[in-house]
């Protein structure tokens, strides 16, 4: 964690960030964290799946890019073939920093070990020659704010899913065109049958708390699984 630094114009006045996409820049990832507030934005491109954390205490939501570790089927050389990316991907190599005091304003931190830190002078500047944030940093700060807000709202969403027992384990059989059959395990999805049986009171409560839309968005996102399988087949040289 030592490479995480608070971003300041004094320290990082000449800093440039490599904003291209690519495996060498850390984009070869199978999935990335998404927050319920952005389900609507990402559900058009990626399947949204849920995973129990290792302590089996809480769920996180993930946008799926591939079927094995390090596989990002949206990545083609220097291109990320999608109209949008999850906030947690877009804000790299920045992070939200918080002090002990939960009410203190969040800070922008940066991971100075990230391959996105540019040393060749070809990346995007974070501060201009006068030390003012560039439009790029302004956009990053906006995304960090949205991510932070979404992240802090997420526990209530997952609590609601548990309250109504709306998550079920998910196993996907993937028959690829090279003849192999693969299984994607370890994820959860919205239990559609349970969702159907919820009465008006329960639905009304979910809706009042703003959870209903992300639930349906997550459901709808599963139609991207077949497109992702098609990408996998193309990557294998089939289809």
């Amino acid at each position, binding site marked *: 964690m030592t490479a995480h630094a608070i971003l300041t114009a004094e320290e990082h006045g000449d800093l*440039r960030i490599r904003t*291209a996409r690519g495996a060498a820049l850390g984009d070869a990832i199978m999935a990335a964290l998404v927050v319920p507030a952005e389900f609507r934005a990402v559900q058009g491109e990626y399947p949204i799946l849920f995973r129990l954390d290792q302590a089996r205490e809480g769920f996180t939501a993930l946008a799926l890019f591939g079927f094995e570790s390090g596989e990002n089927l949206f990545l083609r050389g*220097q291109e990320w073939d999608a109209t949008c990316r999850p906030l947690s991907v877009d804000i790299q190599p920045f992070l939200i920093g918080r002090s002990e005091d939960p009410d203190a304003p969040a800070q922008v931190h940066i991971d100075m070990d990230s391959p996105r830190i540019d040393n*060749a*002078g*070809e*990346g*995007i*500047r*974070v501060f*201009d*020659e006068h030390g003012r944030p*560039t*439009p*790029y*940093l302004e956009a990053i700060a906006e995304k960090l704010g949205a991510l932070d807000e979404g992240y802090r709202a997420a526990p209530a969403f997952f609590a609601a899913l548990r309250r109504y027992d709306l998550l079920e384990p998910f196993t996907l059989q993937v028959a690829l065109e090279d003849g192999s059959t693969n299984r994607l395990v370890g994820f959860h999805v919205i239990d559609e049958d349970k969702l159907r049986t919820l009465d008006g009171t329960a639905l009304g409560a979910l809706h009042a708390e703003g959870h209903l839309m992300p639930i349906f968005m997550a459901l709808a996102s599963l139609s991207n699984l077949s497109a992702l399988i098609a990408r996998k087949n193309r990557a294998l040289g089939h289809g």
Partner: protein
Amino acid sequence: MDRLVSRIVIVGGGTAGWLAACSIAARADLAASPPLQVILVESPDIPTIGVGEGTWPTMRGTLARIGIAEPDFLLACDASFKQGTRFDGWRTGAAEDRYHHPFTTPLEGQPRDVVAAWAEQARERSFADAVGPQPHACTLGLAPRQRIMPDYAGALNYGYHLDAGKLAALLAHHATERLGVRHLRDHVEGVERATNGDIVAIRTRASGTIEGDLFLDCTGQAALLIGEHCRVPLIDRTAQLFNDRALAVQVPVAPDSPIASQTIGTAHSAGWIWDIGLPTRRGIGCVYASDFLSDDEAAASLARYIRAAAPDCDPGALAFRRLAFRSAHRERFWQGNCLAIGQSAGFLEPLEASAIVLIELSLDALLDNFPVERGAMDLHARRFNALFRYRWDRIVEFLKLHYLLSQRQEPYWRAHRDPASVPERLNELLRIWRHQPPSRTDFDAADEVFPAASYQYVLYGMGFPPPRPGPIAGNPASVAAGLRQVEHRARSLAAALPTNRSYVDALAAEHPAGPAPAPTLTPAPARLETL
């Protein structure tokens, strides 16, 4: 029977000759019968003089059509990006006296509204700064593009600064190795003519006669074909543009020094000094009028500039090269089956780097209106001559404009403002521009060399007053949002673009076979074998 035009003979191998060879061969239809044959005859012992080291944005299209990848070009020609020209000291000579003529055109809108919006809402900024983001990027020494962009695409419009000798070598290699151009190193000793005056063939010292259907005179100032043999006279333009000397020098630069994003043209008492930044050197030269300044005074002026602009460099240790020229162009550029391209067609002081672009425009005009058979050639020649007489006139006027609005009081500058030295059309336009900004109405030919925007940049850069509101209402509010966007875009580009130095260094690091930056006066060894 009318002969089909298929044998193109190019005489002369400088920038003009090799650009011609590549452009023609690259556009030849390989399935044509008879196929187009291009031969370039170059005298083995006449050194080519670089006609200029600044190009226009047109060069990107030219190189792309020829089939040369941008990184290869940049590395082989020791090139960097040119985003326009900055004029220092032209108005008064004071320390803060400078303005930009960027390549990117002003924001969208009626010229009347754009100029009025600047004058009313953004007068604290220069015109060029208010209407486009490019001057800001130039001030920061930024490249106009990122390396991940496709070849020849830019966030800002750009041309190049380059080593003209290396460009000729690169084009020669490409022409002969890739495009099937025949290269003959031989002396041209004479010309065989038909009764109608056409050139039938050129006689060479060692290779006999070379017949052709169309002969391109790219022999530079010698004008071997168009001048010596076709006897087409020159039209003198020294009454308008009386600079006739240049002292040129190459100043080495440190490997990590910033590279300027634009040509810098600095006025002095009797002319101006060019300053063109390449990765390994700066080309600096003093242009002057011998009627107003002695050679020694010019050398002193140049040395003074170098001491101020490149303090680490001792001007006494540099070799100044003296060039004599006169501003003039042919009465006709195409006569019979002989077409002059490059300096054989004419020469003007390189204030707006018009030399190479005129070569490109001539080749575009030739290839877009190719004389398929001899019978069509006279018609094409007449059209070509009319078009290029128009273009040379417009260039003379535009160059003259740079001098005309100056308030400098030296005799040279006062002489430049003598009404007798000002083309009548320019005088008329200036009278009109008191009441309306330069617009497309003033320059209505297709493919004007200098569009109205260029005139706006010079006019308002030199302090010409923007028109006052008149009886016809404008709508400056329509461009108010545009003005704000310019500021935002300038900030975004300043953040996103690398410096020129970072760009060329990263490029060189990726192509280690390229020439290493060598901070010496001797040219770095050419990557390509000279032919």
